């Protein structure tokens, strides 16, 4: 279908699409519906499982463009971009959307340069204005919202995870898979080593539904265990403020904020975090914000939906106990 919305599949590197892909397809279906366009998935991978293809169809991908090949993993821009560009030039999609993930972020930027079109990065909303799609994206560390539109097509965008309502799992349907004949160029970069981060047993920060986060109020690295215990009970990821990271209490990859990760979980629980502007930038789009701080004047209470003024060393363990009781009947 010409003029379709293409969603680039973000997968788990084991042949299945990640949930953020359902969010992409869900939003694309809503916008494409308004314009009478179709939604198609575009999957570049070294390995696609049948089940994964079925999932994409179930979410509502009318067609799946699948390019499989060993050179496609791990992601390298100089390999992926020519493949995508060739397909896009041939099929003329109306939009190409990716997720705000490490590889899509770079991929979409390079693709935009290759195609000579605009890229709206890190979008949190779309609306039709005068028949044109307008994207909303936070700028200045989330202090302002910028509304942008494209001069030409395709409309390239990356969508922030956890913001858009994912497509519902539709009735199972046979995926319509296209395996286009495109040449996959050899890459210039070669992977030497992949160092897995130490497994915390907790979800990834940017993908988690719930995030528990700690700041200077934790007083030392050893006390993060209090947050980890709560996180285990409620299935949360553990993050940290810049103060905690700069103090060397947590590695940088756990930092939430302007110079760290941007997250929008369903529930954010900030403990001993004052709520500096630069931290708020990383979490203010969370759906529900809870703050625990002994200082009633801490700025985080201004953005919190619920707050407890108290000592986190007392409050957090009580929360862990209470959640254990109501969630697990312990």
């Amino acid at each position, binding site marked *: 279908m010409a003029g379709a919305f293409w969603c680039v599949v973000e997968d788990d590197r084991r042949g299945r699409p990640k949930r953020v892909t359902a969010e992409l397809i869900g939003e694309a279906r809503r916008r494409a519906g308004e314009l009478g366009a179709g939604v198609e998935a575009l999957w570049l991978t070294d390995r696609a499982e049948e089940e994964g293809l079925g999932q994409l169809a179930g979410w509502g991908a009318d067609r799946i463009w699948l390019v499989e090949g060993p050179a496609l993993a*791990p992601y*390298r*821009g100089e390999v992926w971009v020519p493949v995508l560009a060739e397909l896009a030039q041939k099929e003329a999609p109306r939009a190409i959307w990716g997720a705000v*993930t*490490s*590889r899509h972020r*770079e991929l979409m*930027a*390079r*693709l935009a*340069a*290759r195609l000579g*079109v*605009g*890229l*709206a*990065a*890190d979008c949190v909303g779309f609306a039709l204005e005068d028949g044109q799609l307008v994207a909303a994206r936070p*700028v*200045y560390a*989330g202090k*302002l*919202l*910028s*509304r*942008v*539109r494209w*001069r*030409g097509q395709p409309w390239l965008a990356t969508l922030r995870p956890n913001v858009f309502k994912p497509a519902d799992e539709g009735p199972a349907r046979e995926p319509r898979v296209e395996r286009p004949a495109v040449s996959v160029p050899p890459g210039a*970069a070669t992977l030497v*080593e*992949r*160092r*897995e981060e130490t497994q915390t047993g907790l979800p990834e920060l940017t*993908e988690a539904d719930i995030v528990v986060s700690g700041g200077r109020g934790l007083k030392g690295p050893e006390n993060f265990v209090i947050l980890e215990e709560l996180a285990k009970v409620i299935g949360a990821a553990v993050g940290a403020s810049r103060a905690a990271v700069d103090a060397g209490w947590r*590695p*940088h*990859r756990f*930092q939430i904020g*302007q*110079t760290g990760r941007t997250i929008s979980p*369903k*529930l954010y629980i900030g403990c001993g975090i004052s709520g500096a*502007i630069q931290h708020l930038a990383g979490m203010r789009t969370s759906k*529900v*914000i*809870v703050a625990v701080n002994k200082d*009633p004047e801490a700025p985080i*209470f201004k*953005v919190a*939906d*619920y*707050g*407890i003024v*108290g*000592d986190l060393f007392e409050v957090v363990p*009580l*929360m862990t106990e209470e959640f254990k009781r*109501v*969630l697990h009947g312990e």
Partner: protein
Amino acid sequence: MKVLVLVKQVPDTATQVKVGSDPRAIATTGITWIVSPYDEFAVEEALRIREKRGTGEVVAVSGGPERVKEALRSCLAMGADRAVHVLDPALEGADTLTTARVLAAVIQQEAPQLVLTGRQAIDDDTGAVGAQVAELLGWPCLSWIMEEAIAEDGATVRAGRQVEGALELFDLPLPCVLTAQKGLNEPRYPTLKGIMGAKKKEIKELGPGDLGVNVDGPQLELVRLEALPPRPPGRIIPGEPKEAVRELVRVLREEAKAI
């Protein structure tokens, strides 16, 4: 080895940013301008490369109005050897592709072995320019790097990029583009000597015309900027810690349905 660093001048993170009288720009009065923090990591890395190799040149490049020279001068004060300023106020509101075209043209003129920049500028937060420059030049690129080491022969670089759950180390042929993530290094302060020496260093001025790039006609148009709607006022749950926690867990489940 010649290393080019692409930097952007942005409002300080602590600055209150407000929409200007033209809703497509911010009000610039009272703003403190700084070098975007990620770009500082890039400058620092370039200086370390020069120091480690004992030779080489570090050139800082930026585009925008006259005041961008302040940002370039901070790079010179940190230790960059010289700077290039593409002087055009229109570059300030340009989309990333326009910016990338201008910078790619400078890179072609300068022909460095390596281009470094921050993973994103903290104003527009698009994070595309580094990758787009690489694409326009047909170079490989690695984004969000946490470590970097150039091979002794200066032909390749080994760099590690941060991805979800891992660090991926690649060997890349030079020239290439690397974008810096926090954690790559700790940028130095310019020393007093560096500051005083900066005024003797060259800031070469170019116009977009000198580069043959048209800066009008962005591919991505800014319709307007808006203040974020404030979050509805929250509530402090009172009471003894035990009761407060019990009430909090109840409202999270029953009212907010967050868990």
